[in-house]
């Protein structure tokens, strides 16, 4: 494993830059799920550039780490990260995303390099991850299995079937993340279907649960490192995030931006907000 030393500042800058790629993808295609893309980006950057043993070079190695983007509608952020990781060209995905006949479909497609499983229908990633973690343990692989869910997604019953089985089989090689941005397409998650007791609920299924700031890469790093020290249970990281994080006042914490496509003026404002945030990080 070719692991670089953890550099929270560099990864935070990268995460802000990749949000701009997402923005361009969505502007060009006229569709996408920008709010969740921006909230989950820090988790993806931490996983792909700090935590996971995965790269274009080892993508077929059975001992690699495995990832499933269960909240498949945040595919733009996933594509941006995979492109930055070298699985395909950033320019290609920006130009081809959601275009007629494109391989870059509006939900993850495992005919593309770097994508393990197709997703899009919510509530699939965790149960599939359970199967992967079981298989990796059976095969004595060092692999870890990661999946990222949305907080609206945890209303799906199949998610709880996954929590149940992972707890039952004590899958310590499995780490799930809930991108807890507290907004879903119809409004606040707590109004749509409450998850106020999420931490206790997941814990009661036999999981180690860590709550952290999901838009702080140093804290995410810490949470993922802590998860690796737990050897008798799976870990769920509840990543408390802000929907639209980094895009500035115009889009942060606004349910309407779940899948809003910015106009040119909004685009300019978001770019400005991302740049300002980047400058702030660089001059910390």
């Amino acid at each position, binding site marked *: 494993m070719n692991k670089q030393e953890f550099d929270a500042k560099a990864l935070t800058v990268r995460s802000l830059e990749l949000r701009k790629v997402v923005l361009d993808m969505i502007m060009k295609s006229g569709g996408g799920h920008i709010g969740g893309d921006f909230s989950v980006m820090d988790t993806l950057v931490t996983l792909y550039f700090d935590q996971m043993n995965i790269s274009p070079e080892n993508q077929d190695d059975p001992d690699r780490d495995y990832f499933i983007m269960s909240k498949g509608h945040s595919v733009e952020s996933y594509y941006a990260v995979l492109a930055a990781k070298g699985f395909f060209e950033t320019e290609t995905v920006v130009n081809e995303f959601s275009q007629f006949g494109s391989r870059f479909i509006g939900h993850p497609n495992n005919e593309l390099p770097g994508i393990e499983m197709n*997703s899009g229908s919510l509530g699939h990633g965790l149960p599939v991850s359970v199967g992967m973690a079981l298989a990796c343990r059976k095969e004595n692989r060092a692999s870890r299995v990661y999946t990222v869910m949305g907080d609206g997604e945890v209303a799906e019953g199949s998610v709880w*079937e996954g929590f149940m089985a992972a707890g039952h089989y004590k899958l310590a090689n499995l780490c799930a993340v809930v991108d807890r941005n507290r907004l879903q397409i119809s409004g606040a998650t707590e109004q749509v279907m409450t998850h106020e007791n999420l931490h206790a609920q997941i814990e009661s299924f036999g999981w180690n649960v860590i709550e952290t700031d999901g838009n702080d890469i140093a804290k995410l790093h810490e949470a993922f490192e802590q998860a690796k020290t737990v050897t008798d249970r799976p870990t769920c990281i509840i990543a408390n995030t802000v929907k639209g994080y980094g895009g500035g006042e115009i889009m942060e914490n606004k349910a309407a931006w779940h899948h809003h496509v910015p106009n040119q003026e909004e685009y300019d404002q978001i770019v400005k907000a991302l740049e300002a945030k980047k400058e702030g990080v660089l001059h910390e």
Partner: protein
Amino acid sequence: MNKIPNRQAICETLMAHAKEDRHIYALCSDSRGSASMTPFFNAFPEQSIEVGIAEQNLVSIAAGMAHCGEKPYCFSPACFISTRSYEQAKVDVAYSNTNVKLIGISGGISYGELGMSHHSAQDIAAMSAIPNMRVYLPSDRFQTAKLIESLLQDKKPAYVRVGRNPVEDIYSETECPFEMDRATVHGDLEAENDVAIIACGEMVRPALEAAKLLQDKGIKAVVADMYCVKPLDQDTVIKAAKSAKLVITVEEHAPYGGMGSAVAVTVGENCPKKVITMALPDDHVITGKSAAVFDYYGLNGEGIAKKAVEVLK
């Protein structure tokens, strides 16, 4: 009368291979007894996964395992695995192209007395409509074993439906002609037949009985054991239709979207002939043991022969 149900033949075949191949897994949803898979679970505990009564989890977990190189066989009543976990079959198995074999046990109206919740008269239609999903309904235990032997060799998704009760042998240990995705023909496709009967699963036996009854009346019938519902053996369907005046399909399924529909489309497109599809009604199926229910709806040798005579008149 044979006492070995097709599900037991699956268990025995998998056990024979699991000794040599540690990647073969059996997954059950509190269904190992009904699936006849208890011997497998006892003999290969390390290759057995219990998921509890959670069919969605069953299929997704299998997909994850298959993606990591294992060869999972999922067992659950056909009524549940084909529709309760339909989306998992569509997305995690067929769309993601994982090497998962879904085994629907106690299929059709095996649980005749238990009501519609436990009948799987929609499974052929449901599974066939998924791209990259194959659908098989083997007729007897020998063909079932041959089918599983063949499925063990490939890495593609498949759905297999078997019934709960033992069915009379059609083939034997030494005489079981089998070619993957080719129907087994009983009779002569080159001859001038009066009727071509195309059947699958438990309906093959009555189709053969009907052919015999018809022969006694001087009516010549050819029977195709169409265990491969998808991909349908279109070549045999066309040859059978061309050889006969009438095509009759027989299946333990609802009248819509089953094997009969696929045959009718193939015949209509290639060699238009009258096609009669014999199936369960588009209604609540009458309560009773499956044999009595089949008799009630004319899905037996006599009923099929009677239908052929009526239509040929």
